[in-house]
């Protein structure tokens, strides 16, 4: 055999090109296909809120009231429940937006597995967006609410039923396009 460039030797490359272009075509179709956006839906949506049995803590008052956190005063109105912790970085991001929300509807905070002094410092540093705060030392309430992680926010309607859940920091666009319309509707 003489040392010549033969067309035969480009054959592997040609085959590869075919496979390459077909794969590209399929990928292109896949990319443009409608996607199912999977959102985490709470099992609790449409159900009554689980009973809460944790102490309410007044972080800035002179005396610690020894009473359980309750939502009695918010019956017949829409309100929000927010799970947070001082050790959770994303909670800091959502603090100003929660404050906005608190101006429209009452927001109840649940401090998840947090120390009293840490929570107090957190509220001092980033502002207190809550009407009242309960402390969930053992994470029991979080389990009953099926909380996936902190922060997490629930909306409860006039009939005491959960209508919305958002896992993760309540960013501005979520607040504006998801939470506000729901609040106005109800």
């Amino acid at each position, binding site marked *: *055999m003489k*040392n*010549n*460039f*033969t067309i035969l*030797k*480009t054959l*592997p*490359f040609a085959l*590869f*090109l075919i*496979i*390459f272009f*077909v*794969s*590209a*075509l*399929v*990928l292109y*179709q*896949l*990319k443009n296909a409608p996607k199912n956006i999977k959102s985490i839906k709470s099992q609790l949506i449409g159900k009554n809120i689980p009973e809460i049995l944790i102490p309410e803590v007044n972080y800035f008052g002179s005396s610690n009231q020894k009473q359980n956190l309750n939502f009695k005063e918010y019956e017949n109105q829409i309100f929000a429940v927010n799970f947070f*912790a001082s*050790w*959770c*970085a*994303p909670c800091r991001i959502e603090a100003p937006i929660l404050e906005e929300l608190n101006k429209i509807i009452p927001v109840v905070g649940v401090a998840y597995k947090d120390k009293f002094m840490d929570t107090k410092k957190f509220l001092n540093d980033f502002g207190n967006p809550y009407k009242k705060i309960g402390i969930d030392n053992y*994470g029991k309430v*979080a*389990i009953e609410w099926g*909380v*996936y*992680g*902190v*922060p*997490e926010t629930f909306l409860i309607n006039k009939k005491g039923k959960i209508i919305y859940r958002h*896992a*993760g*920091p309540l960013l501005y666009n979520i607040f504006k396009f998801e939470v506000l319309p729901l609040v106005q509707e109800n």
Partner: protein
Amino acid sequence: MIPEIGHIFLIITFVASIMQILFWIYNINSFHGFTVNILKKSALINFSLILSSFFILTYSFIISDFSLLLVSNNSHSLKPLIYKISGVWGNHEGSLLLWVLILSAFTFLVSKKNSNINPKLLSSIIGVQTIILSLFLAFILFTSNPFERVEILPLDGRGLNPLLQDPGLALHPPMLYIGYVGLSVAFSFAVGALIIGEINREWAQQMMPWITIAWSALTIGIALGSWWAYYELGWGGWWFWDPVENASFMPWLIATALLHSVRVLEKKLVLVNWIILLSILAFSFSLLGTFIVRSGLLTSVHAFASDPSRGVFILIILAIAIGGPLILYAFKSSSFKEQKMQFNILSKESAILINNLFLTTATATVLIGTLYPLFLDAFNGNKISIGPAYYNATFAPIMAPVVFLMAIAPLLNWGQHQQKNLSKKFIFLIITTFIGMICLYIIEQSSLFALICGSLSIWLFSGVITDIIAKIKEAKIKFNKLSQVFFFISKINLGIHIAHIGVAVFLAGVTGEQFYKTEYNGRKHIGDIFDVGEKSLEFKKIEMLDGPNYKSQTATFNLLNDGKVINVLKPEKRFYPTEQSQTTEAAILSDFLGDTYLVLGDGNKEIGWSIRVYFNPLISWIWGGACLMALGGLVSILQNRKYRKIIK
């Protein structure tokens, strides 16, 4: 903080690898001895950085650091430690990190072990390896970062897919990746040879151990995957021609062809272009496998990371890593000096050439079967899947001649001159096979295909025995001196014989499973006694039990023979609450001669439970055979090392 260190290590390695590539390209023609030294050092640095990064990820899994997205999605604080560790590679991002870890390890080892080859070739090899490394590091850093933090701090992890919580599968990805990535060494050797335009017998000798290691690991990896599918998925079979299985099988077939043809190149300078092409193809198929698994192009049980944008990135990697060398091949492969191949039909090299021809054709049929659904999807949007019927009709007939030749080839000599007593060996081989066939027919009367398949196994086995006996006779060693005989056997090419016997054992297993399997499907109530084949089963009870991180529904069956209980089978259905998923644990009674395989389906007290029973004769031989093949590979590496030391 600690995960960020791992992340920074990866970024440093990525930047450093690009600088190394530039350095190598800059010095590609003006070659100095110190270039290769710097490249060797950089291979060590890359390896240590990636290793540290991998340890950091493992550490995050062990301490269950759920602030990492990967850990929170794939681990759980209650999971046993071994599955926390195997969770590192039980997912897309972590397994890619393992991939680059193995790649950098191989690069480092090559730079260490092959330091005596042509320094220009060595620096090209390291350079090509570094290009692949940088491509995959870019892929990790830009699309699949294992060190990504979470937005929501989860209370606990989501757990590892329960199907993957299994000892067999904990080892499956590492073995498979050692195989896949090990083939990159052959690839880099080939591209290196193309770049420097020079090839010699030493090239083949240096490359041989790497191919053998990769091939053995790939064999074990595939076998582990198949074993896992057999006992965990509860489908009752051992090979499903699933696209992802094919993706691992195609590199194996090409690597097998390469493994044999490189032996020809070790002896004389022929088939050079062919071997270069095979080396490139073997690793290309590994990459294609990665692409198929990772891009979600083809759906299968493995599609745990389907994301089209990742697919685009891998496609770009493929274009560079496969397209580039193939263009290089098209233009430069003609420049190699070659000896003239003297074609004698009765010689080892021609037998190996024919074996290569069949193996590559077989690979092509698998490739067509795997990609055809993709082509159809691209052009008219139809979604089809190609099943065993296609492969039984195309793949099996192509592989039969391969096995037929496998028994003959070791008996032949290299080159033109054949020994005089060759016909004697053939007669011995034919007679022993014929006796075996008759025995097979007497034991179990069966179809023609079963007989062909079974006798091929016997044929191969007697081929190996014939070869060993003939070699002992030639060396004039008396058979009654056993110690001498064993010493002699350990000196001949024992690895090859073990691997070939492995294939014979494997084939026997396949014959048993394919042609002598009995299957039973039905719905049964508690207390029922029913016959399956020659034995019968009694459904005793069903109960709910608690496992460490699952709840299980366990049934108890008695296996009866002539009314006597000979064994108890306990198939389970497990429910994993964290992952919200269910697995089927088949009850398998395994022994040397075959398995009894019982799967519990859905049901309740009123309508009974659906059950499936299989008697799979010789099925464990399939994996036993695969283990023998891999063992053969390892033995031949060890033998070669000894042999080289003697020469030195």
